């Protein structure tokens, strides 16, 4: 198989097991985002793939060839980092050319390829500048150009947009997918920003405590997270997780928490068990009073990107965050809030695993 395949990657620092058996496969032209909280082992995994982590165990296969025993320079990998890591004494041009110079390519070919990639990344006009004369955005583009210029089979990008401002980050988010697709490299892209993960990843692998907890299309990870922990990592504001003990219902399970009452299409095996009801803030809405709507007090509203994030409090003190469209309810007011049952998630409280859906035949429910 072509592309990148890694299996059973382990790494430990002293007694601390950083990676505990990681398997992944990335096809040429595909971008797999490696997402996880800080300390999850993302950077260590990239370094292990690049051959920069001597203590790491496991197999790295690139285009069908096992490169596990090769040094970093013999793996045909391009890398870019969040701190840019440009050579300060060299011009942007020489920085970009450095992987080709190291390979001993003829000077005229190097010159052509550097100009080509620089134009693609729109830094052709600053090639003679040293890094200190470049803006952060230009530094990042220079670092990306250096990673891409050698036409690597595998591209490892470690949070490359972390240190650029919001405007530029959006620009790069728009440009990168096309650029990466056209490079035909198998790309592993690390980020801590779930929106960036969803925007750039053909698929997203969620790394937590040294293991891949879920690897799926980004929409699947968001809509159907494998665990409560994954659910909490995706979404801003994050999912509300409410303790509940669901009971059997003809249509699935009935769960009640903080004044919400929902009938969920979920496996009846969870009936009577301690569970967490996951309600995403954007699936809550203001509603008329009714037996299924929760009556909540408005504590504060904090606007976010054309939405209103509202902190609400139930009679039992439980805090709920809703993300609403439209007019802001006033702090101190009591409102009725309904949850979209079709988007509600249910997790086993002990294991954290999501309780799967149970498809109910139409007509069975009364």
């Amino acid at each position, binding site marked *: 198989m072509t592309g990148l395949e890694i299996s059973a990657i382990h790494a430990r620092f002293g007694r601390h097991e950083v990676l505990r058996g990681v398997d992944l496969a990335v096809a040429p032209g595909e971008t797999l985002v490696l997402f996880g909280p800080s300390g999850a082992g993302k950077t260590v995994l990239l370094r292990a793939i690049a051959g920069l982590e001597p203590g790491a165990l496991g197999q790295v296969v690139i285009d069908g060839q096992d490169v596990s025993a090769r040094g970093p320079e013999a793996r045909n990998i391009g890398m870019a980092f969040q701190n840019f890591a440009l050579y300060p004494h060299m011009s942007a041009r020489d920085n970009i050319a450095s992987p080709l110079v190291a390979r001993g390519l003829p000077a005229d070919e190097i010159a052509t390829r550097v100009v080509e990639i620089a134009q693609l990344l729109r830094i052709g006009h600053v090639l003679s500048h040293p890094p200190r004369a470049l803006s952060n955005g230009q530094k990042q583009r220079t670092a990306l150009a250096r990673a891409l210029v050698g036409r690597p089979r595998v591209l490892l990008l470690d949070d490359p947009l972390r240190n650029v401002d919001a405007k530029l980050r959006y620009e790069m988010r728009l440009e990168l997918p096309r650029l990466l697709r056209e490079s035909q490299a198998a790309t592993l892209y690390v980020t801590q920003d779930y929106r960036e993960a969803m925007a750039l990843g053909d698929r997203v692998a969620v790394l937590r405590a040294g293991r891949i907890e879920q690897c799926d299309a980004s*929409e699947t990870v968001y809509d159907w997270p494998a665990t409560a922990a994954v659910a909490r990592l995706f979404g801003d504001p994050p999912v509300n997780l409410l303790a509940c003990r669901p009971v059997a219902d003809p249509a699935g399970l009935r769960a009640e928490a903080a004044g919400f009452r929902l009938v969920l299409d979920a496996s009846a095996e969870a009936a009577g068990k301690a569970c967490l009801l996951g309600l995403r*803030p954007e699936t809550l809405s203001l509603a008329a009073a009714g037996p299924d709507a929760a009556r909540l007090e408005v*504590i504060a*509203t904090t*606007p976010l990107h054309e939405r209103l994030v509202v*902190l609400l409090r139930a009679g039992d003190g439980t*805090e709920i965050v809703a*993300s609403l469209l439209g007019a802001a309810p006033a702090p101190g007011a009591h409102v009725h809030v309904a949850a979209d049952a079709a988007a509600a998630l249910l997790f086993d409280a002990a294991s954290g695993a999501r309780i799967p859906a149970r498809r109910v035949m139409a007509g069975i429910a009364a």
Partner: protein
Amino acid sequence: MSLVLDHVSKVYGRGAIAVRAVQDMSLAMEAGEIVALLGSSGCGKTSTLRMIAGFESVTEGAITLAGRRIDALEPAGRGVAMAFEGYALYPPLTVAENIGFGLARRKGRGEVDRRVRAIAELLDIGDLLERRPSRLSGGQQQRASLARALAREADLYLLDEPMGQLEPQLRAILRGRVKALIKERHLTAVLVTHDQTEANAMADRIAVMEGGVLQQFASPDALRDHPENLFVATFIGEPPMNVLTVERCGDGVALGGAAAVAFAGLALPPGQRVVLGIRPHRLRLGEGALAGTIVSNQWLGDQAHVVIAFADQLLVAVSHHKVAVRVEEKIAFGFAPEDAHFFDAATGAALRHGGLGR
């Protein structure tokens, strides 16, 4: 009026190497208001904060707080409570002792304990009260420092990036709790941040700074709908405002050569180059006189970002719902005249917002 900055400037160095970090800044805050100083690094917001706190002298101008001129006073005499980086917690004291530090003298022991516990629980550090600062994570230290400032009684609360290191899972709830507390106690707070989501979430009004100059001081809604210049227009808003350089054509403007959009009564001199801005949330997909090609369609869980190639440029449209278009497809799109913003291409000054003159 609570805090008033009256023509305040800060100059570092002198003569040929003088740097004007803050230039002729004036703003007035109401008591009970939350104001954010927003800008990227080097914009002058931190120098402004340090002048208000008293860590930096004022080169020109005056600062008054609750009717008292404070710019010549020692920091401790200004009636300002602070939470910021480099204004560290006292290492030998526990978190509880740090938070209660300024309170101990005047209040009874029981009252101090009660207040310390209440503010610590609000900031989710109630179980860390007996720890020393060195045993806290960066985010926990930040919350302890914020708790110490909010526990005090002061005329003004200066909060520098108070929630920058907070894990995202806590941010929404803590922002809400802190905002509710500030409003309930009718505190006056200045929040300094580079993060516009924080400024928008917390502030009643935002002072946008760039290059040492106050660009605009207005409510979040006014910054979105009536930005005074192109810098503010493109700095505020995520994703940023779409901008196109256009020329007058008949009673409208020409977009990308082919398409012309009519604007009744658009009073532009013929041939003047202006910048047209449209917010991503205001682009309408599937209807309108313009046509482009879909470059990407990204669903981010609660919103879709659709990128359209149009007139050698990329435009971003945001929808709150999934959009059924595929990459490479042609799409019709448009916008309502009232959602258009016009700026002078040379100076960046706003010429007009929406269908009618402002």
